[in-house]
């Protein structure tokens, strides 16, 4: 009984694969099949906020795949494919936006932030290294003495309340 339940539960995992649309594209060459998947991953589905044309199950993504297939079979270059679809759906569908006055922040802000973070890290580490020796002047025995004092103080404070609790 339990075994059967486990098998049934495992079968649930098959649901997504069974429901995924099976689309057959008969490419005239292996090279076109590879390009279809490469370009499809770089094209954003116009209907969705963040899914590629390959990933999305929406009707408009399906249309885009059909069009992409047709364009590749007609011998369009990558550049021409992007131009063709951009003329219809706008730059929204390009996952790689062109480098322009209004897009430079997309391209250059992340590396700039990363670099400045790294610089700050290095500077901080250096200034710490300079300060560090000063605070470590105490010898080992001196530090142990200090620690002992702290521990003694601590146990004096807490012992009366502790004994009450345990009795």
């Amino acid at each position, binding site marked *: 009984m339990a075994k059967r339940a486990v098998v049934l539960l495992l079968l649930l995992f098959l649901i997504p694969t069974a429901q995924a649309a099976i689309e057959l594209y008969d490419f005239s060459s292996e090279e076109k099949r590879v390009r279809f998947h490469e370009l499809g991953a770089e094209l954003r589905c*116009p*209907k969705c*906020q963040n899914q590629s044309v390959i990933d999305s199950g929406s*009707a*408009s993504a399906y*249309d885009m795949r*059909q*069009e992409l297939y047709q364009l590749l079979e007609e011998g369009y270059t990558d550049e021409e494919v992007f131009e063709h679809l*951009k*003329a*219809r*759906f*706008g*730059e*929204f569908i390009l996952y790689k936006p062109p480098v322009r006055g209004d897009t430079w922040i997309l391209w250059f802000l992340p590396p700039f932030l990363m670099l400045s973070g790294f610089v700050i890290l290095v500077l901080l580490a250096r200034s710490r290294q300079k300060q560090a020796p000063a605070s470590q002047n105490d010898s080992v025995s001196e530090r142990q003495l200090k620690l002992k004092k702290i521990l003694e103080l601590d146990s004096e404070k807490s012992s009366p309340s502790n004994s009450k609790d345990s009795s």
Partner: protein
Amino acid sequence: MKRALLFLPLIIFIGLGIFLYKGLSMDPSARDSALLNKPLPEFTLPRLDNEDLKVSREDLVGEVFLLNVWGSWCPTCYEEHDQLIRLAEEGVPVVGLNYKDERPKAFQYLAQQGNPYTLNLFEPDGVRALAFDLGVYGAPETFLIDKEGIVRYQLSGEVTPQLVDETILPEVRKWQNAQ
């Protein structure tokens, strides 16, 4: 100098806060059509009511008209339908583009909701023609085409009474009066 530097994280935080707060009120799906101020693409599509009658770009271009993309499967289309009827009553030609629909369902829709369209084009699922070339990815969508056949205004989403009064009718009149 060192003190001032301590405020740097706070300043960055405030700047980031303003930037992200502004993003909250922005509509990520709002974007201008790539077809704005471009010519209406060439097409040949059958009429919805008669599949043997083909309509092409030349048949439509000449006067200012609205092109409304709709489907009986689209809930917002029902919402905006009264506004299309109002526009038609104002004398604005509204051409329908029935999108990813089936004929019987579309006929039923028009019979129940009323028919404001001067004519309807039919672009079912599997066909990539005018709607695809216009960058349509959902319905409803509405385009304003001027006398020269140039797209002058585009709206993704519902035609509201306010949009009709404040934007669409003034735009139609403007392009009707243009030389």
